[in-house]
């Protein structure tokens, strides 16, 4: 008897392609995606994108630059005309994770002071970069170590003879002018002069709050939109869709009505998240109300359009529910709703631009973190709006096809 029940379940699973994929293929797929994303966050394969301006432009600074970018995980981003402003702008826009300015010391022989241009929301990148910089510094400027040691010996142990001094100066001069680095030059004990400048972020707001307000908002927008859009499938099963479709407006008014509801529902949902972020975490919502409203509206529009199209591609509510959970989790992981994008491997970051999450995060980050003007949100908003329109048109078409197929 027990075996009969087992047999029924076994055959049911075997004959349900969707359930088979959900049970055995999707878990492994989701694991691979999450493993790739999260392995990046542990630092193993993280790549820090660095923008650099070498004000010094000497043999030594060039040597340092070469050593710095030879290190694992430190990647120089291409920048046609480097200036201090370019570096600051690239970091502020999030194109570079961190910036470095190599500046002129007070005297020519002094070690160069470095200015690190940082985005506090990418603190992990800044710390990794600082470590790499120190290591590169020791290897790139061995003469500073030698000079320091020699001065200490001369001052505290015994004075050098004239001949020794000449040989020391010659050695130091040779080291200064060398373009190459000895592999065994070591990390050295001389500490570089570092100055850190944050170019973005509100000092009153904790790092990450603005990021996760947007990240959670778009994640839940997608979930609630799909849940709302699934009423279409319920109505189809009940025959309501057929009945409503016989009205003068046809299926289009049904899709329009659902879209309107989902957009308003989504807007209210995101409003609640940001109200909490404002009241509890000091995000400057009142100061950015206009741009925030625009971003929230297009995010809601985009997720609603996508949800309607997605739902109409499914035949049953169960199928939509299962698939939606998987799809939303995956695109949210790739898009940065779970882990900050800059921590992900480069190719996943690139893939992220195909998700609404990334564009939403880009837009919210622009106004709340980077303090950009409304111009900065024009592209993300235009793309999210276009995605919403595409979803809506697709939903019109699919609803129309449902009409014909049901015959």
């Amino acid at each position: 008897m027990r075996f009969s029940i087992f047999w029924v379940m076994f055959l049911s699973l075997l004959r349900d392609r969707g359930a088979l994929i959900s049970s055995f293929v999707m878990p492994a797929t989701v694991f691979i995606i999450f493993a790739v994303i999260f392995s990046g966050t542990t630092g193993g394969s993280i790549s820090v994108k660095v923008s650099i301006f070498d004000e010094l432009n000497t043999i030594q600074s060039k040597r340092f630059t070469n050593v710095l970018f030879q290190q694992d995980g430190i990647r120089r981003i291409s920048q046609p005309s480097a200036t201090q402003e370019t570096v600051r702008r690239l970091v502020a826009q999030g194109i570079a994770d961190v910036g470095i300015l190599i500046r002129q010391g007070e005297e020519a022989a002094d070690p160069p002071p470095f200015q690190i241009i940082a985005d506090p929301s990418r603190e992990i990148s800044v710390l990794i970069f600082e470590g790499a910089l120190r290591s590169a510094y020791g290897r790139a400027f061995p003469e500073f170590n030698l000079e320091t040691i020699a001065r200490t010996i001369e001052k505290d142990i015994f004075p050098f003879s004239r001949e020794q001094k000449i040989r020391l100066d010659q050695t130091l001069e040779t080291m200064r002018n060398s373009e190459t680095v000895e592999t065994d030059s070591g990390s050295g004990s001389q500490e570089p002069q570092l100055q850190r400048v944050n170019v973005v972020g509100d000092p009153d707001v904790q790092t990450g709050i603005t990021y996760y307000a947007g990240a959670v908002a778009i994640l839940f927008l997608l979930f609630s939109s799909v849940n709302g859009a699934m009423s279409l499938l319920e109505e189809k099963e009940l025959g309501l869709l057929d009945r409503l479709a016989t009205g003068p407006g046809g299926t289009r008014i049904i899709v329009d009505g659902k879209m309107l509801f989902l957009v308003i529902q989504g807007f209210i949902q995101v409003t609640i998240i940001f109200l909490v972020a404002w009241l509890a975490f000091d995000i400057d919502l009142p100061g950015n109300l206009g741009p925030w409203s625009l971003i929230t509206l297009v995010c809601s529009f985009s997720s609603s359009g996508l949800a309607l199209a997605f739902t109409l591609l499914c035949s049953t509510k169960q199928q939509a529910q299962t698939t939606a959970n998987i799809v939303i989790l995956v695109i949210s992981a790739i898009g940065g709703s779970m882990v900050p994008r800059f921590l992900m491997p480069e190719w996943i970051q690139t893939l992220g631009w195909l998700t609404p999450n990334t564009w939403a995060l880009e837009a919210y980050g622009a106004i709340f973190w980077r303090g950009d003007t409304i111009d900065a949100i024009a592209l993300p908003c235009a793309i999210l709006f276009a995605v919403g329109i595409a979803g809506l048109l697709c939903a019109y078409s699919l609803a129309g096809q449902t009409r014909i197929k049901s015959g």
Partner: protein
Amino acid sequence: MLKKNKATLIVKNAEFNYGNKKILDRVSVDIFPGEILVLLGPNGAGKSTLVKAITGRVQLQSGQISVNGANPADSATARKQSGLVPQQLAIFNKLSPLENLSVFGHVMGLKRRETRTKSAQLIEALGLQDVKDVRSERLSGGMKRRVNIGAALMHDPKLLILDEPTVGLDFDAQRNLHKLLRWLKHRNLAILLTTHDMEEAEQLADRVAIIVRGKIHDVGRQQDLIHKNFGEHQEIYIKFREGVVQRLTPDQRVRLQQLNLQPGNNRNSFVGLVSMNDSMTIVRELISDNALTEDFRLHQPGLETLLENYLRAE
């Protein structure tokens, strides 16, 4: 008398194929105001597709459909002329009857005031006053069916299409629904009804259209169709007592074969169509002896026999 008016629905040579399969094969049918036309056919005969074509949800490959002079597939005005009552309870369960009617009124393009007036009228006409504000999910099956029909009447359609409206209803609810349909018919509505319930069809139909494999085989008043197909023949049912069949004389067996009676639903019963003369013979030769028969019925063929006849012919 009905045909003095202009037909509300005219379907002419309607053809619809799905892939290589012919779903509707040159279907022609019409319905006049104040008439109930019952569409009879087995599952997969094309009834639902015809209904979808009439409501504009399927575009025909050829042929014409007009509801009050306009094609519902192209014209919103034509779609507004018909009201569809699907087989399922296609209403919003979380809404009350009054709210449901309002929603359907708005969807069909009624203005707010019209919707309010019309829904109030229908609530009264459908006998839903006491439950008008109760959530539909809490109503009985019969009440829900009324709301289901009311939703299709909100925009004052000229043609009402009902797809199996009494499925799952108890006798009382079914009788009330029939009463409602007759009332609607007297309000000059053209009604197209698809049903599997032959008794319901016989009670309600002014005319019957028989559809089998996408083809309308016959349309007409049921008496005319029955007369046309069976003439003066009667439907006969004989059930012999246990063991009698085995003990029939050779003459009696030959007689049964000549009458072309078919085995019935058990080994002792026979059914068939017989002429008046033959029925007299049977009565004389077989039935007069009460010791032989347990049950005997002779009656005019009905729609079920008619449909079976067409199915056999196919």
